């Protein structure tokens, strides 16, 4: 049984990475719509990871909100804007080189850490945390203050969006 979960984990994680890569740098198509679709697949893979962690609520939210609502918004924006120019643009070799070096360094750092890490023993104790009820409890007790502060953050974002997109300049 543990072997099978591990297998699923590697499967979902690999898919998430693969689709994430295709979302950013697809060698076959540079269309933004394709990218958005690959983003949906990435998010679905992530939802699978959440399910493996028994976080069913988060998995559902992930699919409903991100893969559903947010992506529809994305597609609307992409289709409303004329993004043909974006398709034609090519990356310069230097930029790609620098990017690869930077990513390589960070990846190396992380890899080194992960390889050095002591295997964790206490994983099974917090399995139930992902369910709706414990999540709600922890959100409204221990993390109440950041949670409430987020409302202010959302207000700010709303004000900003309205302000920056309002049509007429008085």
């Amino acid at each position: 049984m543990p072997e099978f979960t591990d297998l699923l984990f590697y499967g979902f994680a690999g898919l998430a990475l693969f689709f994430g890569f295709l979302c950013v740098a697809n060698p076959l198509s540079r269309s933004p719509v394709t990218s958005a679709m690959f983003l949906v697949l990435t998010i679905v893979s992530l939802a699978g990871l959440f399910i493996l962690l028994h976080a069913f609520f988060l998995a559902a939210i992930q699919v409903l909100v991100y893969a559903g609502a947010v992506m529809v918004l994305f597609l609307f924006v992409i289709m409303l804007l004329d993004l043909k120019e974006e398709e034609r643009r090519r990356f310069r070799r230097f930029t790609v080189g620098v990017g690869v070096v930077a990513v390589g360094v960070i990846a190396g750092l992380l890899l080194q850490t992960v390889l050095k890490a002591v295997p964790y023993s206490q994983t099974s104790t917090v399995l139930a945390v992902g369910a709706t009820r414990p999540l709600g409890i922890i959100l409204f007790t221990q993390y109440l203050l950041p949670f409430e502060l987020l409302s202010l953050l959302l207000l700010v974002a709303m004000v900003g969006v309205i302000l920056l997109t309002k049509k007429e300049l008085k």
Partner: protein
Amino acid sequence: MNYSLLTVEILTALLGLGVLLLDLWIPATSRKLLGIIAATGLGVLLVYAIGSAAPGDGTAFGGMFVVDALSGYAKGFFLVAGLIVLLLSIDSADTIHGYAEYCALILFALTGMLFAASANDFVLMFVALELITVTFYILVSFQRNRLSSLEAGVKYLILGALASGFMVFGIALIFGSANTTNFYEISTAQTALIKSPVFLTGILLTLVGLGFKIAAFPFQIWAPDVYQGAPALTTSFLATGSKAAGFVLLARVAFEAVPELTAARGHLFLGIGSITILYGSLCAIPQRSVKRLMGYSSIANAGYLLLGFGAASLAGGSAVLAYLGGYIFTVLAAFIGIQVVVSHQESDDISAFAGLARRSPWMAASLTVGLVSLAGIPPLAGFFGKLMILKAVAVQVGTSPMVILSLLVAVLGVVVGLYYYLGVLRSVYWPRSVSDLSPIPVSGTTKLALIFAVLGTVLIGVLPETTYQGARQAVAGLATPKSPATPASPPSATTQAAK
């Protein structure tokens, strides 16, 4: 739970909401009133915060929110910065499109800074930082009829989101290895934790996020562009409040959560600080745009502050906070001059400052005080801060060659810094050619802001005892345990006993 500890934060947020609502009833012709109301409200809050800073130490929300010497110290400066920026904004009330929102956003950003000063938990720290950063995405791109403002906004957004991503990942790793995000709980287990590579990576990634806020070396790339593109008012708040919030949080992480790690890896701070100083100072030399110059100067100053962390001692920490206090007044003093010139000349090229001494002695004085203090020359605040940092670093001489190297870099940085600050002053006092010598009118509110900023810069420079004492207590207070197990009950008992 002791909600009274959050009075200042709640009132600031309410003030912001109030300003947003008042816009509905105040006619478009008297928008200035909004700024005046916001500034007055903030002034009252400042007086309240200073008056109540002493007795109310304690924690709330299960140790997540803490009121101690550091939070009191930092909040005073944040409120002053917000007050000065609001006062300064009143002049532009009629030119800023959406002035009420602008004031409200400044107040919301301020709320984020106040929460950041009291954050005792990585989660609250992240949310407070996001509140600040998201607000600044909007404030930076506020002049949306100017392409450079929008460009700056987008740059800040993309790099800021990247930094946030790093930080969230770091916090996740910290939680994964420490099973808590509370600073105090982490500090009790730090000796074991700092041997865990996962935890170290988490801290490192968190520092990446903070490094972005303070514009330290590998994450400094946004600063010049954003400083230049953003409206001068926004830049002044970005350079003071936002940066200071980053440093206060860094102080909390470095000196409260993982002081042992800071002590062991102090040379990392020294190295990054030295490179930051070099980068900021050297890149500033050829600049012609004063706002961009201030961006590089801000990078260089972040380097000096990081040297203070590198000292990893009580002296180093208090030097950082004392420097920061003076720095806020100093930068505001400089930006008052820049803001007035930019809004009058529609340009921030050095040549736009030509003959400012004749055109507006007030603004010339403010700019001079700001720049001279940034250069670190007595009797202004910048000198005292730099001296204390040098002193704290010099104590470490003999532990590593890196210390001597960073001292030499600091000397070089000050000399180079003087060169470019004097370049601006030269244009102010003896320009090569002046086309326009008409006086620049200065309004009463701007003068009030100017008096606050200049007085603060001079007083911290001449009479630094109060500031330095406050900074020392703030850093010393970080070492004392803040147990979340007994939230608020001991402090409330003492306050009742006092009554």
